[in-house]
């Protein structure tokens, strides 16, 4: 057990969480509370904070532990998990993120009410909150694995300690605390990664990565050193992951909330140039560490799940191992924070305020959000130790949001028919569940086809045919009410 490393990591986390919290409290003491302060940071987050929050919101367990594990089987092509998120960030910062900011929304389900009415909003609220909560349970498992690798504790005990830190991360100051903490953690993480790559090379035979390259070329696996892998890996993994990530996360509350919190649309557009490279280049370091762990027999014997983290703890100087693991933990905690804040916001705005307390004040809503965050985190802690493999679960969870993305796109640009929207959502969700929990894939001899392809095919088929056949009003962006809203905003700006 590396007690010293654990203590250093915990001190780092507590110090920056309290430090940033106190600094923000002092900074905001002089001004009155605004609408959306807790959930949306008063809609005035500056560009660097929006950029780094976008980059780190989708950089969590799957990025770190998932890429370490994938590199074991796919080699450098595992970086396509990161590249898929670069494409996702391009789409968010240049389209969906701008739309939700322009419409002045607080939650994604609100856009569903705007396009299709209240019933669709409620259906999507429940589903989206459930999906993001599912991702929260996976993040809690990831925190448990990281702490377990440092201490030898069970994953469940590690998850409890991590979840308590995660609650502290978000519950004090909400979106603003998450955003500014991410800025500090991103700097520490990249510093740790660069130093770890250098120190790791000096611990290898020859003091460089030649032995790693030799291992793969001498075993006839030189394709594992290329980010493009083989054509089979490219089409099955790279393309499949890109489709799953882009169409499921493109409209998720997790990524939309930082966009809704931005100062302006220009802030989001400019944030892309920092967010995309920051997220994408992380994969380079993760892939190199994952590839290296497999070539050292004593770590290879531990298997793909824990080889890389154990290698880092054993090979790096204790101070650097502590810095790197603290930054990994911080990256997972930032995803934990957003995945607890997002369903809490949906519950408070779309269920609590929309159905039960229309006159709820900002203080009432902040209190309900804090209580919801704590309840969700406690449930996530309880189930973290019983979860399926991280990437398999993410594949199923992400696919729930694929039809939501397309239903929003149809409604904004083409046609608004509530019946078609609900039919499309339900058909895609049934297909997703049938693909995971029935023998349908075996019966069709399509066991290699991921859930995202199936839900995408059902969504496009039902949505396009339904909209061609059914009547409905035109796309929202062509409607008079949207032009009136734009005119109002322009008048208010003047």
């Amino acid at each position: 057990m590396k007690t010293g490393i654990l203590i250093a990591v915990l001190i780092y986390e507590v110090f920056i969480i309290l430090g940033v919290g106190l600094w923000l409290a002092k900074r905001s003491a002089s001004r009155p509370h605004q609408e959306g302060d807790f959930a949306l940071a008063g809609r005035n987050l500056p560009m660097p904070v929006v950029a780094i929050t976008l980059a780190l919101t989708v950089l969590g367990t799957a990025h770190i532990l998932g890429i370490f594990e994938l590199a074991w089987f796919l080699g450098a092509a595992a970086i396509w998990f990161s590249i898929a998120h670069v494409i996702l960030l391009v789409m968010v910062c240049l389209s969906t993120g701008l739309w939700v900011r322009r419409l002045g929304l607080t939650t994604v389900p609100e856009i569903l009410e705007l396009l299709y009415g209240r019933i669709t909003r409620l259906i999507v609220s429940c589903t989206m909150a459930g999906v993001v909560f599912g991702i929260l349970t996976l993040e809690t498992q990831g925190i448990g694995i990281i702490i377990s690798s440092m201490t030898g504790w069970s994953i469940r005990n590690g998850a409890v300690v991590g979840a308590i830190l995660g609650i502290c991360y978000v519950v004090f100051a909400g979106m603003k605390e998450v955003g500014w903490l991410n800025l500090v953690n991103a700097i520490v993480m990249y510093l740790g990664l660069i130093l770890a790559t250098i120190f790791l090379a000096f611990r290898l035979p020859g003091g460089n990565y030649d032995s790693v390259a030799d291992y793969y070329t001498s075993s006839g696996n030189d394709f594992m050193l290329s980010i493009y892998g083989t054509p089979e890996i490219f089409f099955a993994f790279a393309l499949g992951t890109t489709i799953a990530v882009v169409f499921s996360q493109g409209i998720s509350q997790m990524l939309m909330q930082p966009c809704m919190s931005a100062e302006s649309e220009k802030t989001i557009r400019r944030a892309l140039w920092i967010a995309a490279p920051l997220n994408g280049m992380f994969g380079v370091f993760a892939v190199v560490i994952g590839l290296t762990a497999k070539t050292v027999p004593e770590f290879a014997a531990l298997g793909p799940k824990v080889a890389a983290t154990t290698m880092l703890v054993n090979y790096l100087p204790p101070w650097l191992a502590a810095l790197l693991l603290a930054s990994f933990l911080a990256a997972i905690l930032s995803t934990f924070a957003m995945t607890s804040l997002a369903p809490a916001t949906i519950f408070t705005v779309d269920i609590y305020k929309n159905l039960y307390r229309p006159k709820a004040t900002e203080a009432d809503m902040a209190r309900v959000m804090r209580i919801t965050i704590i309840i969700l985190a406690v449930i996530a802690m309880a189930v973290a130790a019983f979860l399926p493999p991280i990437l398999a679960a993410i594949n199923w969870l992400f696919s729930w949001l694929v039809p939501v993305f397309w239903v929003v796109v149809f409604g904004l640009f083409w046609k608004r028919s509530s019946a078609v929207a609900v039919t499309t959502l339900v058909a895609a969700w049934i297909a997703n569940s049938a693909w995971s929990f029935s023998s349908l894939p075996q019966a069709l001899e399509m066991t290699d086809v991921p859930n995202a392809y199936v839900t995408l095919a059902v969504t496009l088929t039902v949505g396009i045919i339904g909209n061609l056949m059914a009547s409905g009003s035109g796309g929202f962006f062509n409607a008079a009410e949207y032009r009136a809203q734009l005119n109002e905003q322009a008048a208010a700006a003047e």
Partner: protein
Amino acid sequence: MNKPQPPNNQVGVETMFWSIFVDSLALILAILAVGWVVAYLIHRRSQ
């Protein structure tokens, strides 16, 4: 556990790490450029 050894072939460090680094950076910049151009063209058309 392997003992630390003095570096004797710095070219190797550059070969593996830097090839993954440079390929990835070039790909990310290409994606950003394509995304920006597509968004610009769509924006210009909608004006």
